[in-house]
């Protein structure tokens, strides 16, 4: 419940431009479907209380999240792509990219990118479950 509340705050503050949002995303049952982004290793670390990887790509992820929180999805994506060039197999990058595509109603690209996240996530079972839930959420919408 705590996570859902936090997530709601994040969405309401970060996603204030309705044009980008799939309409379904605002309904409460979709929130239930969303992955728990507050996992230590994955997710949109918008509140700054998560662990960013050290170094350049962590810094770029942080900037991407800042851009996201300012609803600047384009810059967010650019930061993520810069991070991807440095850390090609960081699942967190692909999860964020997937989420961005989803918000822009590019469901097919969102789904494929989430699958890419799943393929690079490694043996982290919790993270896998998170991504799997993202995939299911995208597929449902």
């Amino acid at each position, binding site marked *: 419940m705590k996570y859902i509340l936090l997530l709601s705050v994040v969405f309401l503050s970060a996603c204030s431009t309705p044009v980008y949002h799939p309409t379904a995303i605002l309904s409460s049952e979709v929130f239930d479907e969303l992955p728990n982004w507050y996992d230590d290793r994955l997710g949109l670390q918008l509140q700054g209380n998560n662990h960013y990887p050290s*170094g*350049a790509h*962590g*810094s*770029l992820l942080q900037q991407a999240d800042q851009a996201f929180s300012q609803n600047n999805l*384009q*810059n967010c*994506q*650019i930061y993520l*792509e*810069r991070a*991807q*060039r*440095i850390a*090609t*197999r960081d699942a967190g990058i692909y999860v964020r*990219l997937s989420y961005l595509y989803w918000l822009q109603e590019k469901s097919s*690209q969102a789904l*494929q*990118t989430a*699958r*890419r996240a799943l*393929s*690079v996530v*490694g043996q982290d079972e919790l993270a896998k479950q998170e991504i799997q839930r993202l995939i299911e959420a995208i597929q449902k919408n």
Partner: protein
Amino acid sequence: MKKVVESKFKRYLGWFFKLSLVGLVIFTVLMAYLDAKVRDKFEGKRWALPAKVFARPMELYSGLALKPKYLIQELEQIGYQRVPNVQTPGQYMVDGNEIDIYRRYVRLYDGEEVAARIHIRFDSAVISGLWVDGVPTEIARLEPLLIGGIYPKHNEDRLLIQLEDAPDLLLKTLVGVEDRDFYDHWGISPKGIARALMVNVQKGGLVQGGSTLTQQLVKNFFLTRERSLQRKAVEALMALLVEFHYDKDEILEAYLNEVYLGQSGRRAIHGFGLASQFYFGKHIKNLSAPEIATLVGMVKGPSVYNPKRKPENAMARRNVVLGVMQGQSLITPYEYKAWSMRELDVVQYTQYQRIEYPAFLDLVRRQLRSDYQEQDLTSEGLRIYTSLDPIIQRSAEQAVKKRLEDIERDFRLEKNGLQGAMVVASTESGEVEAVVGDRNPRYFGFNRALDAKRSIGSLAKPAVYLTALRGDQYNFVTPIDDAPIKVAGANGQVWEPQNYDHKSHGIVPLYQAMAKSLNQATARLGLNVGLSNVVSTFSDLGVERKLPAYPSIVLGAFELSPFNVAQMYQTIAASGFKTPLKAIRAVTTSKGDLLSRYGYEVKQTIKTEPAYLIQKAMQQVVKMGTARFLNSQFDKNLNLAGKTGTSDSQRDSWFTGFSGDKLAVVWVGRDDNKTMPITGAGGALRIWAHTFKDLPLKPLFPLPTENIVEHWVDVETGAISQENCPGVMKFPFINGKTPVQTTDCQSKPGKAWWSKLFGE
């Protein structure tokens, strides 16, 4: 009699009046036409500005594997000056294992980077510390290298300037040398013409023109170089019209931007803005007096007085101009004397004296075609940001050139008979980082990387093995019969492939058949899995052309370009996730407003598990197969994967290889399709190795999933065995597709067949 004369006079007067009237009408129409032409040009867009194409901006961060020499190379290419003490933007200094850069301000498609001091510490070939303006920083970017332009047909290039950008001394010198009555005449200068006439009569030939700056501008803008009275008359009329409509400053500014000042390959250097960068590596504001004299001197004859090509002529002419400057009290006699002795100080290597990358630019242009019209690309001054990595590009160019020369020397082949092409891309992002389309990398012509459709030979085999591993029947140790095979075609012809060594190897496990590139085993496997399935796999990998389901396609008897092959192998290198290869990141207007961006796109076309297995198989090709030469050249921990390819009768030599981050495809062959004395391993593979031997690569770790299991297998029988048993190797399998048979240790002592075969 008197009446007759009067009548005649009146008639003539009438005719004269009528003719004058007609002449006046014609003149008025002509003037109206010329006036419209002049105003259209001056008030519309005066110049077609070619799109400027940039390489990727270099990203610097702690942990980046980067040899200092490559950073220095990049800095030199983007026009930074090495100095003992860094003081202004555009300078850098090297102090032991530290480099200090004063970055210039740069605007990129995703924001700007302010001018700042970047301090970098290296620990051998890795950045170990980074500071920006004294503050420890995670990441910093340099400005990107300008790698070329997309020019209109006349190939004019210019950097537009405003009049206030030009130093006062330049304006005064230009007027003093070219048209000293500029501020007094109305477009044509009778005094200037008379002066030129006198000089020409004295010298007995045409040595001085009487054209004003306005006339010169009109000639360049509207007219041809033809020397005729008619053209001179039109030029004079248009010059009058220009002066009538526009003030002197506007005319002078147009002249500064229009004037032709030399040639750089196919690119015509126009305007003082670009010329000051091209010849002196400086902004026009920062030109010194002798540099101004050199450039103004060039106006008279850009080829004859080109300071790069004809320095003696240019120096003599510069000194003449310095003399004029002194005569007009623009400089002192002392300065004249001192500056007349100076070298020209032309820079040989600046951002604007650029190396062009024709094959890469060709790719950029083609990829832009879907979104932009040719006219927009050649006239709007667009800024195109690409993924070209100049360091990799240079290494690839050198490798292609050197290896082809070596082969020709070693095999005593005719010089320059061989050709080569190469494509380098990022495995994950699909960004193209280098393209070589000719052994002469500066050649603007046939681009083999994109357009040479050549038989791919054994590069097709991984698709056959992947087809098998995608199905239910095959795993790595499934026995395949490498025995003679004949297939009758519809027209009665018989297809009977041979192995490279003209031997058959009998029953071999699947992974060995691929590692050793066995033709007969592959042909049999391809037929068994079904040609239509093989064709589907090619399509899933990104081969766009429709392939015929002929048996010979399993051995690569069809043509693809190196770029097509790179797309195919990108999908394999990215574990089955196809990302369209792209060379462009973004396009902005000339002012920096974002027009379009080309972001990451991906589609899974091959399941992760078979993609994992085929990567492992390709690692075996490097470890113990036809590409094992790489083992002697690279750290084994890189776990490189690759595949050699040689087409029928050795007409094409191919190699594709990838690490954890880079994929490269190399082709070597002849344009006349004649045979060569080299295979894929002898030609293309060596170029791949030469390209990357000095560049950092990330190790390749194929990504297993929970559906991948590993077993120790008795390689002779293909049965599951145990660790420490003789003749066993560990193999990955897709869960549910493991060998059915098992065996115990005792029953199979001795060396396995693969050890006998390969001596390992």
